[in-house]
């Protein structure tokens, strides 16, 4: 068929779909015969909010590789009938696994997988209870990077598990995980606390149309970030603010934003003597900068976590954010936001100066691109560790990760090879579940990533001590930033002394 005829036929087909004369399934099937995938059509398949995925697409276009499933079927025979349990945060990878992909594993293996989806703090509660009781109510642990130190003795090191050749997935290739992520998310005290499972990371997301209108360019320095934000606030405010923040008092999100500011001004949380130094000269510079930047944020930002921050950009209340790249596919979804196609991404602005890892403690790695993320690990208390290990390998294999990225709404992969996977690249267009931001995510992981320190007390410090005091500062509870940071230093010292 000539190209011209093919386009005409496609146009007619699309018209029928829009008018409801044919179903989506028929449309995709016919389009595929024309040699056009949904990604190539630039339409994507309409998705429900927050990466709820289309079953039609999963069934027709994206399925696990038969080779992988054959390995699953072969190796799982002794474990058929086993039930595995995992408690996880509601993240794009977990959602894609739970709603679309685990059925393939279950069919091939005969192993039932029950995934309990909870908010992050409830996952921590469940894990803590499971570990404290050693009851093994969960077989797999979803471990946020800030808990790695706390749970490092309660899970198997995947490198040791891989030594069991009988259960090792061929071509699992643990070296394929991005080295910076392995170091930043999974490693603690020489142990690998599971494998990197997801990677939300701070990138610069900005409204290209607003930036163009005001003659601005994506900020490359912290100073430019402030001046751009101020310029937008002056031109468009108060209807549209320059930048959105995640500054809810007492919430972990506030601590995340603080670290980005701190590291971006040459500061660090700890010095090599393991003393809190957020109150040194660079730390106070960061606070002064942040306090000034807040003037370019929407009113009410003190009450927002990343949820409110994302909504502010999605609804056109703010023109930019230095925040989690996971949000970007949501912004591109025309059914969910009013700004589809209007946002662009850039690497985080360069720090004024940057401390090295040697100038900090507890593995803290300064970088403006604050790294979140989690690992997936097999519990030492599991009654079925081998079956859990099989599932874990399958869930974190390159093939499954590519499917998760394509089906899970453009979430950032943790494996190098997945960034180059054709199925992932095919989604690099404007629309729901886009992956067009992933090159920037990849570059940020490689060159701009900042990792929080790893210590058992970090969960308490990062989710309570520091954000409570920062919230008190922004609500006027301290006379100065110096007083606030000195108070944090005292509290951190007390916590570390136990």
């Amino acid at each position, binding site marked *: 068929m000539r190209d011209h005829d093919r386009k005409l036929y496609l146009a007619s087909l699309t018209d029928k779909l829009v008018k409801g004369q044919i179903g989506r399934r028929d449309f995709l099937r016919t389009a595929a015969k024309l040699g056009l995938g949904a990604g190539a059509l630039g339409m994507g398949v309409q998705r429900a909010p927050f990466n*709820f995925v289309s079953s039609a697409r999963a069934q027709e276009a994206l399925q696990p590789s038969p080779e992988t499933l054959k390995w699953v079927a072969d190796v799982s025979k002794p474990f058929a009938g086993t039930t595995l349990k995992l408690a996880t945060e509601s993240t794009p990878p977990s959602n894609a696994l739970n709603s679309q992909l685990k059925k393939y594993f279950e069919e091939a293996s005969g192993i039932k997988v029950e995934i309990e*989806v909870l908010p992050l703090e409830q996952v921590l509660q469940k894990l803590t*209870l499971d570990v404290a*009781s050693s009851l093994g109510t969960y077989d797999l642990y979803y471990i946020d990077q800030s808990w790695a130190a706390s749970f490092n003795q309660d899970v198997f090191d995947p490198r040791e598990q891989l030594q069991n050749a009988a259960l090792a997935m061929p071509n699992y290739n643990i070296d394929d995980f991005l080295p910076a992520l392995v170091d930043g998310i999974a490693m603690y005290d020489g142990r690998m606390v599971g494998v990197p499972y997801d990677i939300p990371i701070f990138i610069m997301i900005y409204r290209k149309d607003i930036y163009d209108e005001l003659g601005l360019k994506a900020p490359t320095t912290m100073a430019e970030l402030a001046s751009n934000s101020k310029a937008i606030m002056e031109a468009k405010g108060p209807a549209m603010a320059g930048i959105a923040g995640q500054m809810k008092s007492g919430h972990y999100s506030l601590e995340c934003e603080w670290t980005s500011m701190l590291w971006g001004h040459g500061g660090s949380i700890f010095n090599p003597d393991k003393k809190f130094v957020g109150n040194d000269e660079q730390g106070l510079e960061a606070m002064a900068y942040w306090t000034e930047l807040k003037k370019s944020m929407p009113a009410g930002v003190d009450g927002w976590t990343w949820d409110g921050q994302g909504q502010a950009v999605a609804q056109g209340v703010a023109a930019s954010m230095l925040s989690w790249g996971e949000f970007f596919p949501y912004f591109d979804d025309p059914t969910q936001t009013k700004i589809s196609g209007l946002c662009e991404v850039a690497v985080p602005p360069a720090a004024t100066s940057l401390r090295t890892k040697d100038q900090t403690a507890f593995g803290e790695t300064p970088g403006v691109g604050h790294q979140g993320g989690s690992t997936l690990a097999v519990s030492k208390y599991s009654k079925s560790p081998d079956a859990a290990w099989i599932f874990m390998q399958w869930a974190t294999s390159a093939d499954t990760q590519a499917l998760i990225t394509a089906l899970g709404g453009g979430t950032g992969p943790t494996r190098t090879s997945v960034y180059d996977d054709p199925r992932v690249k095919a989604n690099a267009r404007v629309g729901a579940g886009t992956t067009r931001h992933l090159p920037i995510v990849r570059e940020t992981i490689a060159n701009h990533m900042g990792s929080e320190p790893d210590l058992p007390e970090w969960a308490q410090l990062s989710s309570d001590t520091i954000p409570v005091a920062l919230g008190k500062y922004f609500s006027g509870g301290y006379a100065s930033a110096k007083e606030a940071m000195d108070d944090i230093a005292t509290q951190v010292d007390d916590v570390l002394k136990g």
Partner: protein
Amino acid sequence: MHQSTFARTMRTIAGWLVVGLFFFPIYFWTSVAFRDAKDIFNWPPILFDFKPTVRNFEQVFGISLGFGRPEAVTPGGGNFYMAPRLLDSIIVAAFSTMLAIVVATLAAYALSRMNFRGRHQFVNWVLSTRMMPPVAVAIPMFFIFKQFNLLDTYTGVIIVHGIMNLPLAVLLLKSFFDDIPAEIDESALLDGASRWTIFRRIVLPMARGGIAATAVLCFIFSWTEFLFVLTLTQTSLKTVPVVSSTFVTSIGTAWGNMAALGAAAIVPAFIVILLVQRHLVRGLTMGSLKQ
């Protein structure tokens, strides 16, 4: 008493304002359930001018309602598929209420009618168990339930909710039984009726209003309870308050879906109240007049 037209009008307006004040949050929450995400957060807020959609309900209940463009609905799958969870809530609330009411009516009747040593102290002790913060017993409960294989089971949650509601039910029912003259029991005893017959044939029917009021309270407490269900369940069952947090994802909250589940969850509780409404009013006013 004569009232001016102005006063009557003002009173009507004030009445409607109060009704509006209570009704508005329910309207707004329900309207969120019928909106696309892009129509939920707006400034100034949109109250009526939005294009309604049933997609949130379709996702939450895994059914296609057939409006608008055909959507891929994933019955039985998807993180936001909550129909079974609504059923879990109904089962837990209904059976735990039954458990609490059956045990509480017997206990309350005994406390109301029978004299035994330490009766008043016993009532105080029942009341004191209600003062204990649930969080103090949630963790020990977890270990006990694990030991008895009650973790993540209907039986376990029903027992916990039943026990949780028992003190309140006993105290309320005792006060209702106290309002029924003891002379009626004594007359029946003289006529040869047993205690059980008096309880079942005479006192229980007379306390029907009070039992209905207590049952409604027990049902609502169970319907909205969060901590025990969160701690004692995993994947087999969950009630609406706990699964509502599933809509809080790492990349934001699915407010439309949450509102759809919330709006749907009002219905069963509303039906229960409607069914017992006649008794409820009578129960709540029992004992308000001294004879």
